[in-house]
């Protein structure tokens, strides 16, 4: 681990490990408890593989009652719990702790209900994102949010991370597509939020839970909205001599009232890496490559293709190909979708960042990144969701060279600082986790962070659920709860009447 401070393991919990394991076997009988060190290795990290930790014990419950009992047991004994879905988080959200039960939800893998008239699917949290689409596609429906890990990532994990994907510009993030959840609080209480109707009653706790990174509760059931598949989809592959022109083209498309199904941009290093890897036919003499996908009825798509092509030409595009077949559309995407492994071929290791910026700041941020790249002596390739300003710089480094991981992390932190400086945010879709935890003060004041922690205190006052994630420092809830203002201490001799 490179200098990341995690909560100090509780010596008492570590001492009582065998007793805890035995009790877990009573709550979750059969194969649901894993405690052998070699078997637990499979769970020691998530998609942020630079960080690893073998957990206290791995528990794989099968029923809501078991989840509730595990959490209540741990709550009563002050034992920490880290929830985990498929373990594809890129920010270390499911990184185990030495003294924590790792609660793995993968056995919650059934679809509970499919309701076409109301266009909903009720799924257990371990069902994969793609599994939902697979269950309804014979009727022409699909689940819209499509994170690139959709083959593996779980819908429960999607809720925890508020996952996005290339289509969220038009169809929204997880938060906009989930209607309800059932969840278990750290104290074992089971709570339902929303359902098969729109908008939850009372405070929007469903909105708070979505993207809460496993710190507030464990999701045990998810109700999502499904959509009818668009009739057709076609894409344009547009090359520009400068990233400024590409960025302006994106702004002009949106300015024309067009919200494409997907709008992705790649910079020169990413284009070359992808082309070398999958031979998608990308132009190699451009600085920015834009993929614009339009979906809907054929007449609409044809109409918009013409409009987008005109906008591209007006912005000085040097190449503009329009897909004439489904095969060609997929070939445009092949390079983009393989961008990460493609970069993996040209560098021993890469570190994927995830900032969001106001779109107009793109040229400034790319220029800033080039400067940082020279300063740190590390290459960077950029792919980004251009429509919503979500950048994924891939920093190239070699973990076998001492100090390079630290250097890559410092470079990444500087990129995120730059994103915040231009009005953006630290993470667009990958989450804070442990990765960006210590950067939170770049974006939030202590007072801002205190409010977030107050939410945590309402859900989990003992800080037992997924501690060490999201918040740079933990403050005791009792201390946060204290009112620092008392009657008479704030002097308002004259009541302000504005």
């Amino acid at each position: 681990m490179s200098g990341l401070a995690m909560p100090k393991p509780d010596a008492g919990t570590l001492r009582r490990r065998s007793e805890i394991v035995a009790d877990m076997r009573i709550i979750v009988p059969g194969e649901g408890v894993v405690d052998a060190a070699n078997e637990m290795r499979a769970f020691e990290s998530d998609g942020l593989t630079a960080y690893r930790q073998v957990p206290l014990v791995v528990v794989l419950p099968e029923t809501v009652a078991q989840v509730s009992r595990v959490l209540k047991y741990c709550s009563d004994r002050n034992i920490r719990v880290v929830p985990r879905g498929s373990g594809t988080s890129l920010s270390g959200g499911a990184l185990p702790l030495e003294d924590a039960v790792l609660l793995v939800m993968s056995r919650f893998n059934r679809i509970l209900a499919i309701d076409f008239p109301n266009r909903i699917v009720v799924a257990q949290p371990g069902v994969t994102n793609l599994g939902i689409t697979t269950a309804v596609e014979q009727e022409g429906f699909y689940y819209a949010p499509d994170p690139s890990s959709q083959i593996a990532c779980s819908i429960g994990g999607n809720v925890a991370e508020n996952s996005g994907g290339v289509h969220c510009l038009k169809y929204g993030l997880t938060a906009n597509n989930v209607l309800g959840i059932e969840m278990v609080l750290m104290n074992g209480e089971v709570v339902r939020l929303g359902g098969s109707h729109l908008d939850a009653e009372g405070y929007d706790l469903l909105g708070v839970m979505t993207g809460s990174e496993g710190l507030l509760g464990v999701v045990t059931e998810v109700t999502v909205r499904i959509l009818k598949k668009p009739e057709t989809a076609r894409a344009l592959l547009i090359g520009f001599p400068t990233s400024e022109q590409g960025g302006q083209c994106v702004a002009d498309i949106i300015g024309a009232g067009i919200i494409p199904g997907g709008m992705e941009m790649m910079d020169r290093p990413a284009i070359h890496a992808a082309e070398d890897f999958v031979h998608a036919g990308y132009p190699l003499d451009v600085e920015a490559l834009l993929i614009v996908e339009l979906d809907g009825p054929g007449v609409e798509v044809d109409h918009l293709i013409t409009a987008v092509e005109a906008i591209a030409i007006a912005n000085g595009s040097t190449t503009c190909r329009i897909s004439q077949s489904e095969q060609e559309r997929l070939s445009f995407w092949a390079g983009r979708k393989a961008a990460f492994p493609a970069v993996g071929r040209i560098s021993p290791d890469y570190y994927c960042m995830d900032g969001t910026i106001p779109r107009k700041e793109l040229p400034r941020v790319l220029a800033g990144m080039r400067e940082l790249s020279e300063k740190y002596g590390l290459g960077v390739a950029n792919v980004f969701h251009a429509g919503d300003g979500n950048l994924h710089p891939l920093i190239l480094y070699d973990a076998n060279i001492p100090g390079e991981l630290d250097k890559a992390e410092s470079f990444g932190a500087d990129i995120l600082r730059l994103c915040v400086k231009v009005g953006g945010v630290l993470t667009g879709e990958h989450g804070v986790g442990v990765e960006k935890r210590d950067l939170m003060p770049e974006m939030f004041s202590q007072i801002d962070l205190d409010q977030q922690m107050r939410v945590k205190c309402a859900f989990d006052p003992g800080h037992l659920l997924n501690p060490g994630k999201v918040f740079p420092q933990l403050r005791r809830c009792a201390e946060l709860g204290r009112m620092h203002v008392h009657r008479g201490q704030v002097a308002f001799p004259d009541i302000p009447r504005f």
Partner: protein
Amino acid sequence: MTTFTPTTSEEVLSSVAWAVAEEAPLEILGHGSKRGIGRPLQTEHTLDLSKLSGVTLYEPAELVLSAKAGTGLAEIEQLLAQNGQQLAFEPMDYGPLLGGEPGKGTIGGVLGANLSGPRRLKAGAARDHILGINVVSGRGEAFKSGGRVVKNVTGYDLSKLMANSWGTLAVFTDVTFKVLPTAETEVTLAVRGLLDDAAAGAMALALGSSAEVSSAAHLPERIAARVAGGSLGSDAATVLRVEGFGPSVAYRIAALKTLLGKAGPLEEIAGEASKAIWRDVRDIRPFVDGSEKPVWRVSMTPAQGHQMVLTLRMQAGVSAFYDWQGGLVWLRMEEGDPEAALLRGLLRKHGGGHATLVRAAPAHRAALPVFEPQAPALAALSQRLKQEFDPKNILNPGRMA
């Protein structure tokens, strides 16, 4: 009796800080257009945000707008319209239903009540479009959440927590919303003469097609005459809105006509006439009658809406119409009794959801839970959140009780 009328966020902060120190509860007010919703307040002091007004940032190409919380919704919508843009969630105007004037309401109120209109079905509610907030909590602490970009998962989404909190957790000072282009063309297809159950079937068929229907409402016989100046006539009208670029709208309307050709007589309504229908559905125009007859807003499973109403009719005199494919039921209790227990009992038997008593005499609102009562564990959790953000219960105390 003090009324604070701050013009800056600093003044909001010092007003709330004073109230915290004095333990003096405040009613949080914008234009007061929704003042008649919720349990009546009995606070001595008022925090009037209507002078905390003005759009502070609008970048059409970035699809983002920020405004001070007391900015009029009408002002914002006018500004957006000048740029061919809109708040896609189509916030409704409760004013006329509650006996007030039309065209009032502030952007802070829109978020505080999580307003939305018929396009909610496709575009989401206010909570789906909020990007960031600045607020002052009931502890007298000014803080921010979110930002100005669409994709943001940095920390908890406190903007959503504050949506639908009716001013009971914090006072908004600034809000930032995502805005979207207004559709170039809108056409409404009306299927005429359907009974409620047939209408539910037709709406499910339309929404389950790839015609991208943005709104679906059913106006039963006689109710239909009370929208768009009576232009629909009084036969039941099941209305489906299609929006987008001209050629696409024409194609999708044609597809819907084929799909629903056997359901009943079809009418195509375009332009201003179409807009008038949806504006009136949005603002519950059929029940704008100058009375205090109880009106319920029920959000439930779409296919169950008309079934619940059928059962309810056996025990109470009600008028009903449906938005959101049948999942938003507007009910007027014709005999004057809200029948809260009866309605909520039936709602539970029909797939659950929530019923809000949006119009009722103050005596009814004082005696009944206006908002849907929550299960004990959820109610306790909500109470703990209230305690965290407003421990002295100074912000709109009791309004959501």
